[in-house]
């Protein structure tokens, strides 16, 4: 019950913040969708960081390192520190500048203008929305599972749901609905400004709670009087196979080429439509400096303690002490490692706060994605085809809000079907976005890119994604890799997609007529 009370207080606090920020709303569509380009360096850092870090940052990182060892940090965290900031620096600043100059609100507006093509918008729209929706589903479903997990045993009733599933906790369906409604309310009323403030608050919450959790778990697990002694005691029992990345016994490790090609996955940030929208909220180009510099450090602050906790969990000090059914539960679903550790070692109070931190990480991504899809429907479809001049400012906000409600309802509806495979779709979604990275990079840095070259890039990315997705049994084969022909070297599927889209774009652009010099002057100084 303590945990449930803390979660309810946290959600109420978040709603209060969202409603407060809505009082700063200026009543224009530009303010609703882009916060009137008024976001300074600190809010930009916090809102972009909160948006790019999902539940995976706390729960997934611990679970993956429990299963795979310390290499998880290298695979996902240090690589993101390099590539995310690279995207902010190379793409974000230039796109902000062009957006400011030509009044873009969405990615598709930029592509249509740069490539002088109406059709590119129609081609990209379903692909971008199609890749964001599974990403949204992951958040909605994860929030339901987390709340149900930590409240199990609280109630004697199952509220009409299957008792074997609810186990005396808040039913997942109800928990997901509450999270959707809370996010909907502050996005609905606060728009981008409310989202930026809420993201900042939530990012602070999950960063602080992550560090506090690390300290408490280290002290309890190590059981010594000082923090350093406890750290040493906890680490001394880490199984040797969890300290390396090579294959040992049952631990299959990761091949060096697969590890290298994994680095292409975080390039997806460069094509996330919701990150694009956050970039455009910046007050000026200089506001990007802080996010570019601090992003790798922030990733380290969140990920390093979580990875260490994950490998501690696999040791005899923790895993070895658990009853067999709980060991089996952890083996079957490593995502519950962190909640179980907190429950066993830290008690309900910290458990409640940690749950609030996990929900903060989930909601700080959900809000931006909901707002972004609402904005895309309004700007790229309704206003674009009905004529922007026919739709006033108030109508634009009304349409965006209606679409946001619709998207929240559709996402929640889809989450009820429990498409469990959606969790494994995460890396496929990111790979899809990464395969479009060459297109946005070429739009900004390659004058010879043509409209036909852009179509070729999108079609090659989509075609290769579809083929490899099919080859992986639609993500059922979680360890699916692409072998380099004639060798036994394995690569991540994203490498093939990236290569296909780049080659198609370059070849077709070189054999088709380049854009007029006059047009290019608008984009290249």
């Amino acid at each position, binding site marked *: 019950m303590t945990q449930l009370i803390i979660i309810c207080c946290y959600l109420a606090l978040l709603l209060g913040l969202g409603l407060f920020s809505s009082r700063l709303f200026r009543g224009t569509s*530009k303010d609703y969708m882009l*916060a*009137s*380009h*008024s*976001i*300074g360096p600190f*809010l930009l850092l916090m809102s972009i960081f909160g948006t790019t870090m999902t539940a995976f940052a706390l729960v997934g990182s611990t679970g993956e390192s429990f299963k795979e060892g*310390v290499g998880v*940090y*290298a695979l996902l*965290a*240090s*690589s993101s*520190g*390099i590539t995310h*900031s*690279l995207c902010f*620096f190379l793409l974000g*600043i*230039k796109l*902000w*500048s062009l957006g*400011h*100059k030509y009044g873009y609100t969405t990615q598709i507006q930029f592509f249509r203008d740069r490539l002088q093509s109406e059709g590119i918008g129609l081609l990209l729209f379903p692909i971008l929305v199609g890749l964001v929706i599974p990403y949204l589903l992951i958040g909605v479903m994860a929030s339901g599972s987390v709340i149900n997990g930590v409240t199990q045993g609280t109630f004697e009733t199952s509220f009409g749901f299957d008792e074997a599933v609810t186990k005396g906790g808040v039913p997942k369906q109800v928990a997901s609905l509450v999270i959707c409604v809370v996010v909907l309310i502050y996005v609905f009323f606060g728009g981008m400004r409310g989202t*930026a403030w809420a993201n900042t608050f939530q990012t602070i919450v999950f960063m602080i709670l992550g560090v506090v959790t690390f300290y408490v778990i280290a002290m309890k697990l190590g059981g010594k009087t000082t923090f*350093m002694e406890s*750290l*040493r005691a*906890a*680490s*001394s029992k*880490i199984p*040797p196979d969890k*300290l*390396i*990345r*090579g294959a040992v016994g049952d631990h299959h490790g990761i091949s*060096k080429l697969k*590890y*290298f090609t994994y*680095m292409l996955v975080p390039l997806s940030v460069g094509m996330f439509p919701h990150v694009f929208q956050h970039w455009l909220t910046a*007050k*000026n*180009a*200089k506001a990007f400096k802080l996010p*570019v*510099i*601090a*992003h*790798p*450090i922030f*990733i*380290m602050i969140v990920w*390093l303690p979580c*990875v*260490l906790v994950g*490998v501690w969990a696999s040791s005899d000090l923790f895993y070895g002490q658990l009853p067999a059914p709980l060991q089996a539960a952890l083996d079957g679903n490593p995502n519950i490692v962190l909640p179980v550790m907190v429950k066993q070692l830290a008690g309900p109070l910290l458990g409640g706060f940690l749950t609030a931190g996990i929900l903060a990480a989930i909601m700080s991504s959900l809000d931006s994605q909901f707002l972004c899809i609402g904005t895309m429907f309004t700007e790229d479809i309704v206003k674009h085809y009905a004529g922007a001049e026919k739709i006033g400012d108030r109508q634009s906000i009304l349409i965006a809000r209606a679409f946001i409600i619709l998207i929240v309802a559709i996402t929640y509806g889809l989450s009820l079907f429990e498409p469990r495979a959606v969790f494994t779709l995460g890396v496929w979604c990111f790979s899809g976005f990464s395969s479009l990275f060459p297109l946005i990079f070429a739009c900004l840095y390659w004058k010879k890119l043509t409209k036909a070259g852009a179509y070729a890039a999108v079609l090659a990315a989509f075609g290769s994604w579809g083929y490899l997705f099919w080859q992986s049994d639609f993500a059922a084969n979680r360890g699916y890799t692409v072998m380099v022909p004639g060798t036994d070297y394995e690569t991540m599927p994203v490498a093939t997609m990236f290569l296909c889209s780049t080659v198609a774009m370059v070849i077709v652009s070189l054999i088709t007529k380049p854009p007029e010099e006059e047009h290019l002057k608008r984009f*290249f*100084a």
Partner: protein
Amino acid sequence: MKNVVWGLVVLLVILHQDNWLWEDATLIDGFLPVTLLFHGGLSIAAAVTWFLATKFAWPADVVESSSPGGSEA
């Protein structure tokens, strides 16, 4: 200096492929796995490199000013 910055970014990518630590299970100071120490250090090195990028490789062709309606947030 701009080329030095981009050289450092390439170096970060090369260092990220730390094949020499693949099988190293050393615990630094008795608690921190060497892989985590190295990659934590790489995260700090990335922040320093991006700081240098904002100093010496800032794009010259961007609009710097805020929008007329913009204000501090």
